[in-house]
């Protein structure tokens, strides 16, 4: 399976690219697994603890989908973004 990972705002500056496809040998993975892969392969670490970073799966915050255990399927999209308020 493959997942499109997008990095927006400060995560973009950290990772250095705006989008990457990540490939896995399974039909389903968790967000935790994806973040581990990013850490191992790219040396970047994102957590849920930072209050200005959001992680979204298909536009939904993962806190409401089981947190780091949220599931990702083939062709899903994950966004890691720094968030500030609009107005």
């Amino acid at each position, binding site marked *: 399976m493959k997942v499109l990972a997008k990095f927006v*705002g400060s995560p973009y500056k950290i990772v250095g690219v705006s989008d990457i496809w990540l490939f896995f040998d399974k039909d389903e993975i968790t967000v935790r697994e994806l973040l581990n892969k990013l850490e191992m392969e790219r040396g970047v670490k994102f957590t849920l603890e930072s209050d200005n970073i959001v992680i979204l799966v298909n536009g*939904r915050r993962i806190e409401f989908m089981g947190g780091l255990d949220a599931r990702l399927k083939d062709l899903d999209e994950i966004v890691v973004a720094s968030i500030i*308020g*609009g107005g």
Partner: protein
Amino acid sequence: MKKKVDSWFGYMGQVLRVDLTHRKCRVEPLQKELVENFIGGRGFGAKILWDEIPAGIDPLSPENKLVISTGPLTGTKVQSASRWVAQFKSPLTGIYCRSVGGGYFGAELKFAGYDMVIVEGKAERPVYVWIDDDKVEFKNATKVWGMNTLAARDFLLEETEKGARAIIVGPAGENLVKVAAIVTDDSRTAARGGPGAVMGSKNLKAIVVKGSKKPVIYNEEALGEAVKEQIQAYRQWSHFKDFHELGTDHAVYLWYTFGHFPPYNFQQRELAGVERFRPEVLASYVVGHKGCYGCMVRCGKVFKVTKGPYAGIAWEFPELETHWSFGGILGNCNIESIIAANMLCDLYGLDTISTGVAIAFATELYEKGIIGKSETDGLELKWGDAEVMLEMVKRIALRMGNMGNLLAEGTKRAAEIIGRGAEKYAMHIKGLEMPAYDPRAMKGQGLGLATGTIGGSHAISWNKFEILGVPKKVDPFIVEGKAELAKYVQDEMAACETAVFCKLTVNHNMTNPNFYSKVLYSATGIEEFKDPKYLWLVGERIWNLERAFDVREGIERKHDTVPVRLLKEAMPRAPAKGQIFELDKLLKDYYRVRGWDERGSPTKKKLVELGLVEVAGELEKKALPT
């Protein structure tokens, strides 16, 4: 600490009443009762409008009043607290309106010695008011009538004083365009609800002000300490750097991902080219930073266009909402054209949100064949056509042609005039064009928009729980518990806009009643203000008074709604795919939480509890239940 004497601390103690009809000005003492019950800013204006504007008047008649107010922290060293408020009966919505502006005008008005200016009547010929400390003059504005805001500013400051500050209307306000804004000398706007048209209807081109005084602070030392802590907190604020770098534009792309930034007039088809709104792309246009008086965030950015047909424009800058109203909603991802549209709106004096939404409305009507070229004066209204969009901005501002003149009335009125089912595509709430949020994707935010006292405004009801996750994260799809959250953010913002704090810092929880009470007491020495609970009460009091104004104008349950497509058409894209907005359940909860009856009127019990006894008496005439 100073000894409390009879004079004011934090306040200047004076209200300037400007009677344009008789070319007379009167300085009135600031009333103690007004201060104690309403604190300042938005609270002052809500009370003055309730007391002085009878129900049913024409907003563009001399009977309407324009209240320009500051707050007890305006012009002090407290950070992000020097904004100013325009309040009036809206010519766009026919109900109460509050519109907040930034820049340096508010602080300067206070330095001239006034907490508030109340403008009434109508001048016989175009005038501007020149306030030079205690000296107030009516000056001939015939020469600047018709000028854009920038040209008028240069002329007026030349004629008065270079360092003066001003609020100005452009041709749109003069032409009584119902979505006309007030623009400051530094291109900040109080835009929503048509305050520019109110000034235009009074033949008032501008208010120019220069002052040399400073508010006296009750306890300088305590205020200094609190501000030091505030600055420290700003420095440690995890969003500070991003906010300073790109302001609200940091959020544009993310809003689309959340299911907001609704493209194609809320049809919510996927927006090809949305990647152009990523922060790193928008940041590439930034050539400078600007801000408001007394705010280290300096979130205003100067955008420069260096290539293409709009090359040469350097302007402070389309914010998140404007990227949507001239971008997403119109299917337009040409950033340069959005910068150009923003500039045109500031020069003509137009609200960018309402103008863009009105054009999107007409574009969808054209797409659906409800209107044709004969009604658009030959223009082909197409999604993503930047040139047509800019042409329409001009036509609206100048009321040119059939369509320009029609959209100048605002989306709601335009739909009523067109008929043929056009209302279905008019994205407004109580006549105010909607901002870049889709209620289907965020239920508490949607409820806030549906119940807004000025109509569909994100500015007075921004659900930070759902959007940012502060003070705690709340699932945007859940319906339960959202009434409480909507009330929370509405009352909090009403309280903080008495200062006048900037909404952006309230949205981030950097400003809240706890912090506010501390600086407010240090600045004013007024005992009641020490208690954050009292500030919450004042916030609720203001919200209820605003609602009472609306109820007196005929607002009821049926007006607390959102456009029908958001109730009936399922959201077509992620993350809220398949969802609609559950208005009935949300509204029922909201009225209960607010202590209002099933028609949406504040009950006598609630009004008495809030100290609004005389309001209860007046609403009783409209068969208020006990």
